[in-house]
């Protein structure tokens, strides 16, 4: 039994959904960010797998840049979290609902 492209893709799909579930479920912003990392990783797996499968390097490059993007997002995201943590003393997004309607 060989592991084909679809195995990876389905893994990617599952991980994407797991990440999505986390994003939707989490109220703690830090943990919510974790979930977005999972989603990006899911994409990475798919890219890498396709890239390897067809022998084209763009996919791996894309994955590489996604990693860079994820890193940048973390930096900015954490900055923002620190900011609101200082102001609100909590990371619960339920507290962030002054603006509505």
């Amino acid at each position, binding site marked *: 039994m060989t592991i084909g492209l679809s195995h990876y893709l389905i893994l990617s799909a599952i991980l994407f959904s797991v990440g*999505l579930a986390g994003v*939707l479920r989490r109220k703690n912003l830090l943990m919510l960010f974790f979930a977005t990392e999972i989603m990006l990783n899911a994409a990475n797996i798919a890219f890498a797998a396709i890239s390897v499968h067809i022998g084209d390097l763009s996919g791996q490059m894309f994955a590489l840049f996604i990693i860079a993007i994820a890193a940048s997002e973390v930096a900015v995201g954490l900055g923002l979290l620190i900011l609101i943590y200082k102001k609100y003393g909590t990371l619960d*997004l*339920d507290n*962030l*609902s*002054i*603006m*509505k*309607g």
Partner: protein
Amino acid sequence: MENYVYIALFAPLVSSLFAALFAQKPKIQLVGIVTSVLIIVSLLASLTLLLHIEETGKAVSVTLMDWIQAGDMDIKFGFTVDQVTAVMMSVVTLVSSVVHVYSNYYMESDRSFNRFFSYLSAFVFSMMILVMSDNFLGLFIGWEGVGVCSWLLIGFWYDKKDVTRDINPSISPSWAANEAFIMNRIADLGMLVGIFMIYWNLGTLKYSEVFAHLDTLSHGMLVGIGIALFIGAMGKSAQFPLHTWLADAMEGPTPVSALIHAATMVTAGVYLVIRANPLYSQIPEVGYFIAVLGTFVAIFAASMALVNRDLKRVIAYSTLSQLGYMFAAAGLGAYWVALFHLAAHAFFKALLFVGAGNVMHAMHDELDMFKMGGLKKQMKWTFLYMGVASLALSGIYPFAGFFSKDTILEAAFNEHTYGIWFVLWFTAGLTAFYSFRQVFMVFFGDERYHELGVHPHEAKPYALWAMAPLAVLALIFGFFKEDFVEFVTKFLPAYEMSEHTEHMVWILTIVTTAIALTGIIIAYFKYSKGLKRNLEFEKKNKVYNLLINQYYIPILYEKTFSKPYKELSEIAWKEIDMEIVDAGVDGIAKAVKVMGDESRKMQNGNLSSYLKWMVAGFIIVTVVSLLTVVIK
């Protein structure tokens, strides 16, 4: 001669405008004099024209200027004075002159003396346009113009308040004025439709051209035009069922009633039928209908006059009745007879009204004849005038009415419409009865006016002098019958009695005179002495109540038209316009707003739900799209 046409036409206008300049000023006697003089000038011009036409036998036509030009429609202010017009002009200006002069007396202490003359002269102007115009639309100008003047004059004492009277629902000058105007408008619509039909079928509205080409039209179309125009005539001449306004119009000053609602305006309908004789002679069935309706109105109105206690209303009903006579004649094709009666009627009816004006003045505007009586002593001349007029109205030889009415009866007989003849004959008796009922109630018997504490007095001499021409004409006009016939039949179709009728003339005359005399005699016995109101009778008797309530027609109109219209209007406004149409529009706006409020709830400020919405949106979009693909 053209200048005379213009003088006859515009002298009243100048008069009106002159008076209008002072309309808001207190009384200026000069205004009365100037306007009267100008109307007399118009009269003289009219008479000159009459003589001129008599001499030459040719009509005088002038075109003043263009009026409406649109598409193929080309309507000019054109005036033509032919035999019929000349007669009408003379009658109108003559009565107008008398009424103008008389009004100097009648309105002498009225606050709005000047305004009155302005309106009155304006009326004369409109009437002159009506009779002089050489096309239907010009006629319509006059038609509506007299309507407005009538509105203004009926409502002259506009500041009177609405009062509820026992026999009329709710009435005031302004109410009556509006009623008259609106009823006339209903008829005017018919007239307009007639005009439209003529225009679209013949491409012109000029009498001469229209009548010359009538034969190109189908019979059905002619009937349509005839009916439409007659509907117009019905309104102006207060024919059933559009008659109620005329009695109510008595709210206006009495000279107005004399001029407008007796002598001139109300006869405009008859004039129209006479004018359109080439049309109506081609459609005898419509003519017959007109005759029947006229006959009906004659007896219908006479019956109401029998019991009415209101001095002016009695005369109004008699006018209505006489208009019925005229229509009967015109409908039967005896156009010159109708015109002759029109002229004669104008004289004696105006006289009658003006006389009634004297009585009213004497009685301080009291109109109930039961409160008068025995005025003969104080008002000799007035009694004389009204007597003459009543005799003329009753058709007693040698007064004018005798000749004209008799001829109508002969014509009815001649046409073998014996039913019409019989009714008209019977009505002649009624006419005599109510006319003299009135004379006796007012001038004979006990002096019941003492109860009111009034001191009757005769009118001023110049007023009495002013009435004289009418009285004279009421007396002698009948003797001009032959000349008149000769004159107008140059234009109107000659109406020759058959030989059979010629033989019967004497018998008919005697029969007619007999019934008239019978009426007078009955009236004499019943009303000349010891008159008392029989309240029990008035309460109980159904026929009396039917008549005094004008066959309940005003009430019926009130209940079936006025009130429902008002209620429907309220419904249209409050229920439909506000609740449905407007609320519908607002409903859309509100719905949008509500939807905005609802959809705003998804923006609940919680990041988690925002994220969910985003994913949900993605899923909805995707599932729908992918399902579409799969289904395809």
